[in-house]
């Protein structure tokens, strides 16, 4: 305890130098915490997004798998369509538990956003859609009155954005069609919140896409059958099967570049922090050469001196670690805001997840940083010969 107090008081001697070194460690630790928090949070949010889709496989018309992934998660334009016959083939497969055909169509409306214009995404669905997502609840209203009605159900955000509720009319300019709002879903926390749902048959009729689908969501009875199921559909020339695990990997590979970049920065930050700590402690050891000599003359052992200097390093890294964690916790939201802007796809929910395990691990990491950086300066101090050191000439 005596040594720890002495180590702490020694660091207090050159306050600014100590604070700057602690700051260097704090930055390195906060970058590490944020990076790891992002890694955990992103995967969790992505899994959550994918779980909320309710299906494990998506059948789409042949095209770019990246586009398919985007389509599934985000919705989007420039869609290619496949024949509804595929639905007939797959629907009666004994391995299939639930199946939901969808027809997605994007319409440009120049009246949106106070005249700035914008895209509205319509999705044609039938009753099976709600079977796949039984947790969907209506904020107001009900399901379509008929599978070919001129009605829409709005996602929570799209209703809020356009200030629509049950009974309101929606006009589709390009097709000169007026539809009635019969329901608004509660917030789901997925991209569905921004969509407008139409009965599948109505969508095919209104958008002149009779007999066409953009995708079919499939939930298998047993996920173990997935490889066989995919293999069987592989021969179908016009379609592709995208499984959720593929989508997950695709999206993760899209963000991995960003993560690699941040990891490199984190490694550089850690390296600089280690150099900074070694430099500071070594400088302080050399400045105290005579003092260390006297300490040894009055009885301090090699181990006493080693421990003293080591403790100084550990104190710096411990305080730096705690400060770094606090910075990460406080700054995480801000970093999340910027990351959302640069990421190709950011799932809903929190992208930064700081759990206790991560924080404890980071703290131990910081202490380990101290243990490693302190070895050389502590060794140099411990091997000083008292007589030479007292002359200041070690």
């Amino acid at each position, binding site marked *: 305890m005596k040594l720890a107090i002495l180590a702490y008081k020694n660091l207090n001697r050159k306050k600014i130098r100590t604070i700057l070194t602690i700051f260097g460690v704090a930055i390195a630790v906060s970058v590490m915490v944020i990076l790891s928090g992002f890694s955990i949070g992103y995967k969790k949010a992505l899994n959550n997004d994918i779980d909320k889709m309710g299906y494990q496989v998506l059948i789409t018309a042949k095209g770019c798998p990246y586009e398919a992934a985007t389509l599934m998660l985000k919705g989007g334009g420039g869609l290619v369509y496949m024949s509804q016959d595929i639905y007939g083939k797959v629907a009666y497969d004994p391995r299939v538990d639930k199946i939901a055909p969808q027809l997605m169509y994007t319409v440009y409306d120049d009246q949106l956003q106070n005249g700035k214009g914008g895209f509205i995404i319509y999705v044609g669905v039938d009753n099976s859609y709600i079977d796949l997502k039984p947790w969907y609840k209506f904020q107001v209203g009900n399901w379509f009155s008929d599978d070919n009605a001129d009605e829409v159900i709005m996602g929570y955000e799209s209703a809020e954005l356009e200030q629509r509720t049950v009974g309101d009319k929606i006009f589709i300019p390009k097709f000169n069609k007026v539809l009635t709002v019969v329901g608004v879903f509660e917030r789901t926390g997925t991209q569905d919140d921004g969509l407008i749902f139409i009965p599948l048959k109505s969508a095919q009729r209104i958008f002149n896409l009779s007999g066409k689908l953009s995708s079919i969501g499939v939930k298998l009875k047993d996920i173990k059958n997935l490889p066989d199921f995919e293999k069987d559909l592989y021969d179908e020339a016009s379609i592709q099967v995208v499984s959720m695990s593929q989508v997950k990997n695709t999206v993760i590979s899209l963000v991995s570049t960003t993560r690699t970049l941040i990891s490199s920065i984190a490694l550089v930050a850690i390296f600089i922090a280690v150099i900074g700590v070694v430099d500071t402690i070594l400088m302080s050891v050399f400045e105290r050469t005579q003092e260390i000599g*006297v300490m040894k003359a009055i009885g301090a052992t090699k181990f006493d001196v080693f421990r003293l200097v080591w403790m100084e390093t550990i104190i710096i890294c411990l305080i730096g670690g705690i400060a770094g964690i606090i910075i990460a916790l406080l700054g995480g939201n801000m970093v999340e805001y910027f990351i959302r802007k640069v990421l190709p796809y950011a799932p809903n929910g929190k992208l930064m997840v700081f759990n206790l395990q991560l924080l404890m691990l980071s703290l131990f990491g910081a202490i380990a940083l101290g243990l490693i950086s302190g070895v050389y300066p502590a060794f140099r101090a411990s091997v000083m010969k008292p007589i030479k050191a007292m002359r200041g000439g070690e």
Partner: protein
Amino acid sequence: MENYVVETENLVKTYKLPGEEVKALRGINFSIKEGDFVSIMGPSGSGKTTLMNLLGCLDSPTSGELSILGKNVIDLKEKDISDLRRKNIGFIFQDFYLIPSISALENVEMAMYFARKGVNRKYAISILERVGLGHRLKHLPNKLSGGELQRVAIARALAISPKLLLADEPTGNLDTKNAQDIFNLLKQVNEEHGITILMVTHNTKLGNQCKRVVYMVDGKIQDGDNLS
């Protein structure tokens, strides 16, 4: 039978420098009885501090015999020498050499800690009170005068209850009055506690007040004061 705290026989210390060899001690035959208060005087470069360092087990002789508290230092391992020093020898330096980041009291306690004699705050306070610093316990070294710093250094040396106290020009950085006060304190320590003191000094007035005076010139004891 008298006990000797220090005994040397033909003690030689040579420093090897590039291109030359400096003989700092040229055969010292010398001893100090338990409870003695010896001053070593002599010109600069005469070997006083070198002798002091050897007697304090901070340095090893090139040749000759050296016995401290009856133990032949030449035969001891480094660890045993450190133990001998840690538990029995107190040091006082011209430049005080206190640890600047901790208070007077903590400096004394640190010495107890390093000597593995157990940190005893009450005893540390009592020593500081004895050297007249009962009112300066919590002061950092930079808040103390030269005389006070040396008093803390003496308290630090006494904290381990040494059998031998080595003082290397303890009054060298003090004014006349403070120098006499510090000397009186050392004398009191010697008389009241029977601690053997060896003091290197340039101050003849103080040196001559010791029980025994030794002169050194050119690495040798000048006055022929051999085994006493």
